[in-house]
């Protein structure tokens, strides 16, 4: 019989201990999660096994050592090997507890350990060849031990339990395989239907609500549509949003969104590069906010362009509109918004602000942080 292509029916590495509804270390709940049964059932099995010469307790300790804690990678190699030894010990205890003769249990355990090693998907950090060599040695040892210990006994007493064990395996292994496969299919289906439900809920909460609002308040249509668009984008391209969370680019984007909400204009943000949102960058964002608000209030046009260029040499931010513009010299001295909120803010953090505008030619505010 070839054991090469065979794999363990239960993919052990996918089981993890769980934090929620755990009783001792979350082992039973973790196994129950992985095979999709009630945790109480798994606990019951362990408890019953505990009566078989304490096999359940040893098995529990072994499983605890081998299974990764929730949210962490695989435990270290030494711990996994220790865990496996405990598990094998538990199997031996269980078999003896069920009344099998020592002369059968030990060879069986050795051979089983060999088969597990040969088919294991966990390599314990050993090379494949070493693993196979070890497996062959264990199986041979098991057979030798079996022949040696039972050469005097009668055939029937030996073969009966062996035959039963083989028959059980023939029945149980394909069954376990099928169970695992069905569980996987079921889980995939569940994920798909959850996604569908999520999408439906999302569309209902956002798009349908917005459409209803637009029908009630047609005057607000532009603003509502814009907000909806932004929300949908954030949802469709979450990686872009997540990558920028808590950074300068993100702060500029949300500031622009705020201005759009407040003033009903369109603020187009283009960005290249990004920077951490430290104190200076925050000052830049506040100055940019003031510039955007000015453009929204005074320019008389419905679109404001914002360009953020954050590179190694420094950060530049431009707020531009194609609106009415104004005479910078005449107005800058007494307009607090310009002098304090924009220029003063930038100068205090070592940057500078430049305002370029002329009546009829639009306005551009350039903010720089070296």
């Amino acid at each position, binding site marked *: 019989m070839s054991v090469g292509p065979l794999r363990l029916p239960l993919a052990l590495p996918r089981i993890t201990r769980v934090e929620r509804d755990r009783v001792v270390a979350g082992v039973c709940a973790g196994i129950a999660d992985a095979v999709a049964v009630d945790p109480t059932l798994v606990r019951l099995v362990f408890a019953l096994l505990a009566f078989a010469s304490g096999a359940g307790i040893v098995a529990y300790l072994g499983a605890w050592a081998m299974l990764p804690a929730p949210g962490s990678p695989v435990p270290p190699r030494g711990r996994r090997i220790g865990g496996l030894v405990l598990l094998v010990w538990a199997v031996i205890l269980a078999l003896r507890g069920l009344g099998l003769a020592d002369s059968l249990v030990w060879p069986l355990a050795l051979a089983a350990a060999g088969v597990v090693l040969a088919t294991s998907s966990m390599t314990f950090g050993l090379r494949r060849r070493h693993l196979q060599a070890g497996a062959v040695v264990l199986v041979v040892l098991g057979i030798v031990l079996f022949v040696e210990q039972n050469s005097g006994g009668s055939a029937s007493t030996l073969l009966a339990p062996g035959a039963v064990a083989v028959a059980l395996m023939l029945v149980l292994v394909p069954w376990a395989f099928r169970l695992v496969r069905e569980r996987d299919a079921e889980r995939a289906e569940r994920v798909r239907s959850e996604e569908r439900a999520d999408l439906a809920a999302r569309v209902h909460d956002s798009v349908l609500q917005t459409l209803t609002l637009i029908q009630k308040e047609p005057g607000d249509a532009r603003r509502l549509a814009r907000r909806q668009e932004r929300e949908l*984008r954030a949802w*469709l*391209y979450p990686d*872009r949003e997540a990558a920028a969370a808590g950074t300068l680019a993100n702060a500029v984007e949300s500031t622009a969104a705020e201005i759009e909400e407040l003033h009903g204009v*369109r603020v*187009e943000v*283009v*960005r*290249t*590069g990004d920077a951490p949102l430290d104190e200076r960058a925050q000052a830049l964002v506040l100055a940019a906010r003031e510039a955007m608000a000015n453009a929204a209030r005074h320019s008389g046009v419905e679109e404001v*362009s914002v*360009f953020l*260029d954050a*590179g*190694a040499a420094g950060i530049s931010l*431009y707020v*531009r509109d*194609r609106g009415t513009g104004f005479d910078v010299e005449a107005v800058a001295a007494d307009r607090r918004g310009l002098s304090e909120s924009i220029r003063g803010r930038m100068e205090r953090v070592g940057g500078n602000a430049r305002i370029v505008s002329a009546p009829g030619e639009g306005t*551009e505010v350039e903010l720089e942080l070296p």
Partner: protein
Amino acid sequence: MSIPLRRVVLVEDHDLFRAGVRAGLGPTVEVVGEAATVADAVPLIKALDPDVVLLDVHLPDGGGQAVIIQVAPERPGVKFLALSVSDAAEDVIGVIRAGARGYVTKAISGDELTAAVHRTADGDAVFSPRLAGFVLDAFRSGEAASDSELDQLTAREREVLQLIARGYSYKEIAARLHLSPRTVESHVSAVLRKLQLSSRHELTRWAAERRLI
């Protein structure tokens, strides 16, 4: 000088958007044909041989790129201008690398779209501010230093792109940099060529991830 009439085919799967685009285009642009799928668009464009194809990036049976790939070898004179609701870099890069001469979002006004159609028909490149921002990102100096000039932007090209990203029109850029509008156009076209031919990893990665090449 009279403005030539441009013949345009509109490929877009949303009826509502097609109607909107048709209504918004000025009298100097004539929509000679419309298609909603790649399968309809390819023979239609080959038969009509228009000046410009306005092409939706997202089509149900293969996307705008599929149209360009099937039409361009046989009709090298037809120019493509991509339209999309999104400004996601992956959308842009696919169509541009397939051969589109430019990219605008559907939020563009009718007048701007008309101007963009004329620019495309003249063989110029049409960049939205967002596309300029993305190109600056992809060609950011200091990353993946390469000897190939296709992988670098010149200082002037960078300057022009920054101004596009800031919301300046070609004419405004020309005035600001004391260049002729033609020179600005040629810088942008050079950038488009680099975008199509460069092997910079940012570009190839996008393309490879989305199986665009």
